């Protein structure tokens, strides 16, 4: 027969072509989009931020691998998913989080939130946000201690109170953007917007630099790594609802973790819906809960809770599928049979 018989011949089902983009490369692109934000965070908040990032990534990778080794499963560190979770966890932690606390967060994120549910792709709740939620409810004070960024109003005392505290309509007194700007020591509302856009405010390591998050959003949508629906629906809904409640929508967008959460957390593959309509509803739900927490809740920020709550609805949202090609209304007798 042919010469080909001398070679090793692979047999596999069609298709015999595949896009070059694998899981590992997808995760790599997400890391690439996160790195500028992480680097900016280190520049803003200094050495403690770097320590937090390294501790988070190392702990997620090590704990995932250890768990899989102990449970005799293949080690999946190579798919970079654990590294992404670690980086995401660091981005939503305050820069001064103690190292042991960060490692504990990594442990919770990987073992409890991810591997207990079956590992990559099978987890219900966002691992990074689960880790943060665990730390927040366990150690409230260190998790809400902010330090001033190196950029902008260095003298300004934003060390303990998050800017969101000013935005919340405390005892019915809702401040305008200009009033808040004055309280925070900015010359005008425009100055405030610009400073916030550039990340010159206290906050978690990755949530401040709105301009870099916006850039990452464009890049990730353009490379089709993420879908625009959930982030856009989340931000639009959050801004609209807080605006109705009398809060400046621009400040809603620029403060807290809304932008970061919408772009990086509401688009997490395993814990967000796979269908287009599901993603829109998921995003809108996240935005609505965020706004409600910000306006009425006991916590200043609602992004984390909103996404974790909506995570639990994903299996139901996935029931909403697009209209199939050639779909015909089922005959009546089928409806009766059910």
């Amino acid at each position, binding site marked *: *027969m*042919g*010469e*080909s*018989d001398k*070679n*090793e*011949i*692979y*047999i*596999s*089902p*069609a*298709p*015999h*072509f*595949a*896009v070059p*983009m*694998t*899981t590992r*490369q*997808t995760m790599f692109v997400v890391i690439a989009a996160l790195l500028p934000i992480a680097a900016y965070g280190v520049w803003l908040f200094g050495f403690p931020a770097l320590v937090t990032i390294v501790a988070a990534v190392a702990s997620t990778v090590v704990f995932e691998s250890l768990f899989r080794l102990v449970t005799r499963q293949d080690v999946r560190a190579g*798919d970079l*998913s654990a590294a992404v979770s670690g980086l995401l966890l660091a981005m939503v932690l305050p820069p001064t989080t103690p190292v042991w606390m960060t490692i504990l967060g990594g442990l919770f994120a990987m073992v409890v939130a991810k591997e207990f549910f079956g*590992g*990559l*792709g*099978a987890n219900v709740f966002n691992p990074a946000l689960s880790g943060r939620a665990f730390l927040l409810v366990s150690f409230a004070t260190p998790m809400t201690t902010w330090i001033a960024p190196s950029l902008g109003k260095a003298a300004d005392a934003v060390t303990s109170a998050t800017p969101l505290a000013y935005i919340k309509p405390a005892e019915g007194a809702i401040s305008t953007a200009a009033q808040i700007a004055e309280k925070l020591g900015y010359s005008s509302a425009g100055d405030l917007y610009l400073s916030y856009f550039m990340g010159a405010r206290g906050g978690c390591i990755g949530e401040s630099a709105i301009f870099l998050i916006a850039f990452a959003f464009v890049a990730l949508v353009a490379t*089709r790594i993420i*879908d625009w629906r959930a982030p856009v629906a989340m931000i639009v809904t959050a801004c609209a609802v807080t605006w109705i409640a009398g809060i400046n929508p621009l400040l809603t967008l620029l403060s807290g973790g809304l932008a970061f959460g919408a772009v990086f957390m509401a688009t997490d*593959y*395993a*814990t*967000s*819906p*796979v*269908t*287009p309509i599901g*993603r829109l509803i998921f995003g809108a739900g996240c935005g609505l809960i965020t706004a409600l927490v910000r306006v009425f809740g006991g916590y200043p920020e609602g992004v984390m809770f909103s996404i974790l709550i909506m995570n639990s609805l994903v299996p139901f949202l*996935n029931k909403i*599928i*697009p*209209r*199939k*090609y*050639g*779909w*015909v209304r089922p005959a009546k007798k089928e409806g009766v049979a059910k």
Partner: protein
Amino acid sequence: MKIRTFKGGVHPPERKEGSRALPIESAFPSTKTVWIPITQGGAPNKPIVQVGDSVARGQKIAETDAFMSAPVHASIAGTVKKIETHLVVGNVDAPCIVIEGDDSGRTDFMPVLDPFTCTREAALARVRTAGIVGMGGASFPAHVKLSPPKGTKIDYLIANGAECEPYLTIDARTIEEHAASIVDGIAIAMYITGAAEGIIALEDNKANLVPVLEKAISGQKCVPVGPGACNISVSVCKTKYPQGGEKMLIKALVGREVPSGGLPAACGCVVQNVGTLKAISEAFRQGKPLIDRALTVSGGACKTPKNIEVPVGTLVGDLIPQTVELNPGVAKIVSGGPMMGLAMKSASFPVQKNTSGVLFLTAGETCTDEESPCIGCGRCITVCSCRLAPVLVVRALKGDDLEEAKRCGLMDCVECGTCAYVCPARVKLVQHFKIGKQLVRAEMAKAAARAAAKGAK
């Protein structure tokens, strides 16, 4: 000209340049022996010749009475040496009639028949007797497609020349070299189905064929033809996979959708591959049954990509190295295109009526990654040309929930492979669907048996 298309789809590398410009050349197996599978589309046939019989080229050698079947003919003149099983496409052993050629060149064709003066029934019978099946790959008996159920009105006869599979150039070459035959085949198919309009569909990477076809169409108008048979046009679609899928083509060209579970005839369309239409024309004008198959042989490990025409039953291995030369490093042998074709364990398999190409792929070209866990990115939903939710079908199947799998589109899947092509986790989606469909069919058969048993009581 308006460029038409459908929603979704992907753009795999085309890789057609290797064979696109090369004329179809006749080739013959070096062993002068063909292994003709007894059944090539439709219900299983029975051989009607015996070992030792002398057969002429074009002589019927296997058939069955079932409507959904197509007879098989001797593709070379010679002697029946054996009737035994041999490896065929799909990596299974199937019964084949082995004919050793005797160089006599004796033929036993059918009498020439004027398609436009005979009755529709006679024309349909001719298509069936000629053993014509869908040459685009599906191997569906052509006469079945051309005889839609009573009460169905056919508006459009679509000639499928989209050829959206990478590497394959045989449809394009057939159009370039046999445009008149194809147009004649369309006119015949329009006469049989009563379709008022004929549309020839191309992808825009073959826009250079538009004038060739238009010339053939204007030539056809000069010949006395059946009612409405002159209304044939060329439509250009976007180069996008799976543009050549029957359902996508209908959506792109006439904006209709084939109802779920139905045939294209249910929305007034009949789609035939251009090669099939050429074969239909030849069955009338020359009385020639479907015994020769033109195909593209290509791939990165193929030193000499070309378009060849061989007798049906030629073992691909018997073309090496006289007709087809290979480079070292063949990692996959694919019968068909890289998106839907079947990987073979060896090159020793016969070319069948529906073999549109044989590819020799290197490890670098093809994907040999292992399946990894689904990460839920939803890309399969974005690209699915049938707007299904492949990821949810697979999840439902893993949970043994056939009802949910059906709701998410299991039975509507055309197995085009677009979802698996984009899957970053390399989930073998199409394979899961194929298994799932078998489970559903088994379930339906069981339910039918139960109902029958109840009725008997």
